[in-house]
């Protein structure tokens, strides 16, 4: 697998990247204004935020740990958008990946088996939306929202009922020690490496395989894809399935790779929300695997830094969500770059 860096960069849209940076800047700017308005010191808040995320080995490890699951769910969303669909079902597949890891590693305590079953169940949960889209023309946003909720309640039932830990029913049964992902220090497991490899593979899939070619072609122009002998329907199917697989992997690794509990908590608190966050990551990363790695690290950083920010600057951690929300809304503004240029020019004139 030999490829030059410039080739990857070419597939990334530079202007879009700049727009993401602008969005991040606006997010921080408005965050600062809000902080200032409430009598907090934004500079100190941001200083400690970055200090917490990057100022120590542990901080960096935390950043990487937080970046892992959202990197995978973001890849799910990106595979969708590259194929021209709005797959927001990463959330549901993530739950199933997590519960699959719990169930199957307790049947056979093998790491690879757990990961494989996580991916399988994640992909399975993506299937209904795929089939509804291809055969019934049901818009994927509606079907995936519904499936996310159905999956949520179903998994909640599994973890409170059949898979509750009899010795400590506040969580599910734990992943057996032999099946856990090896730790590489500071609470960080090899999950991050697998996630980066998954991003690289996703890049490889999209830009170096026939399947990826037809997925991208179908996403940009289904008519031309059909003309080119491809099947847009098949591409959509694969996009859902592979997307579910990635999120399933994310869910499995969340539980198998993250201590100290190695189990799903009651109420699913440690498996909730990663699919939704992944959408933001993917959008900021411009739906490109490389951009997603960077955006996931950025979002991970925001979360890793909150402890020190709270402790030293006494700033409530929710400000991070405010900033994230503003970034995503800003990213949603089409042609942001040109818009800002136009406004700036007007301002200068």
């Amino acid at each position: 697998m030999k490829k030059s860096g410039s080739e990857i960069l070419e597939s990334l849209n530079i202007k879009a990247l700049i727009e993401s940076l602008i969005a991040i800047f606006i997010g921080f700017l408005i965050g600062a204004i809000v902080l200032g308005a409430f009598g907090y010191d934004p500079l100190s808040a941001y200083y400690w935020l970055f200090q917490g995320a990057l100022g120590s080995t542990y901080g960096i490890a935390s950043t990487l740990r937080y970046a892992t699951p959202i990197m995978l769910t973001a890849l799910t969303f990106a595979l969708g958008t590259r194929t021209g669909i709005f797959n927001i079902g990463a959330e549901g597949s993530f739950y199933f990946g997590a519960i699959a890891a719990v169930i199957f590693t307790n049947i056979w305590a093998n790491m690879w088996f757990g990961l494989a079953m996580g991916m399988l169940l994640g992909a399975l949960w993506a299937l209904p939306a795929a089939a509804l889209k291809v055969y019934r023309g049901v818009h994927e946003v509606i079907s995936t929202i519904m499936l996310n909720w159905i999956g949520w309640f179903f998994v909640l039932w599994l973890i409170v009922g059949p898979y509750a830990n009899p010795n400590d029913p506040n969580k599910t049964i734990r992943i057996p020690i032999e099946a856990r992902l090896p730790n590489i220090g500071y609470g960080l497991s090899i999950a991050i490496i697998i996630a980066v490899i998954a991003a690289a593979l996703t890049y490889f899939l999209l830009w170096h395989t026939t399947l990826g070619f037809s997925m991208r072609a179908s996403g940009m122009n289904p008519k031309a894809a059909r003309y080119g002998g491809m099947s847009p329907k098949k591409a959509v199917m694969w996009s859902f399935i592979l997307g579910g697989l990635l999120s399933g992997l994310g869910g499995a690794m969340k539980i198998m790779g993250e201590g100290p509990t190695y189990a799903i908590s009651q109420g699913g608190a440690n498996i909730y929300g990663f699919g939704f966050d992944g959408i933001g990551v993917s959008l900021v990363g411009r739906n490109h695997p490389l951009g997603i790695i960077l955006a996931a690290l950025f979002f991970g950083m925001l979360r890793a830094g909150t402890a020190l920010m709270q402790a030293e600057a006494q700033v409530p951690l929710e400000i991070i969500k405010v900033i994230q929300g503003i970034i995503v809304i800003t990213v949603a503004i089409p042609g942001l770059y040109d818009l800002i240029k136009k406004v700036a020019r007007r301002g200068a004139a």
Partner: protein
Amino acid sequence: MDLGAIISILFMSLMAMVPIVLTSVGAAWSERAGVVSIGYEGVLLMSAFFGAIFAELTGHATIGLLGGILVGILLGMLHGAITVYLKGDHVIPGIGINLLALGVVPFGILAYWGTAGQHQLPLNAQMWHISTQYGELSPMVGVTIVIAVVTWWVLFKTPLGLRVRSVGENPEAADALGINVEKYRFWSTVYGHALAGLGGAYMSVDWLGLVHKTMSGGRGFIALANMVFSGWNPLVSLIGGWLFGFFDALASWLAPKHIIPGQFILMLPYIMTLIIVAGIIGKARPPKWDGRPYKRE
């Protein structure tokens, strides 16, 4: 189950339906005009929060409700600006609004009241209720029914409604007849979000009398399900929303009897919606240009 119990369940379901119905009716109107939003969950949450602040500052629950509407209007304008005028994607801003709400509300509760996560409203900021021996009813139940009926009537019986629907079905046709597609779409979005804003404020200043950082509890999504379920029809949304409220109340009622796991009851609305959109029973067809930006050639 005696009569009292039935009336009581009825009251509970009427109170519970308000935010769902208002949001569904608003969303139905907005989608009839061709603008999709999945940000109603965030709108509900933020308007519950800001509505409570308005109510407390003025000591009038009605001002709180108006404040909720105002928040809805502002968010609707933001969504409308991005989707209608800038021709942006219809789904992404909603994701951002939902995310923003999850930050703004907990942060705001802490920053404004100094308590984390929740705040109880003083009595003078809470809506007056009609009390009976079977439970309470808010005047907002009546308002909601009136809004649903009037919205339905306007949408299906008046020139305004005809134009709104034409803009969502075939903007080209509407444009050719001199209907300003962008204007109708924009204000329809604003109206949709304003109703959701009213529903959110109702939750805090009326129904529950408190603000909690996750109080929307998925109702924004239930409302979307209900909208689809009701075939984008405000009047059916009223009935559908009441049914959701009814099943919710019934589930609460049945819960102490412990017949089936609660999680399965909670799943029902979503499963039903999925079945309906799949066309397995009934027929649900969205407006033809729903979610598509319209650009004149």
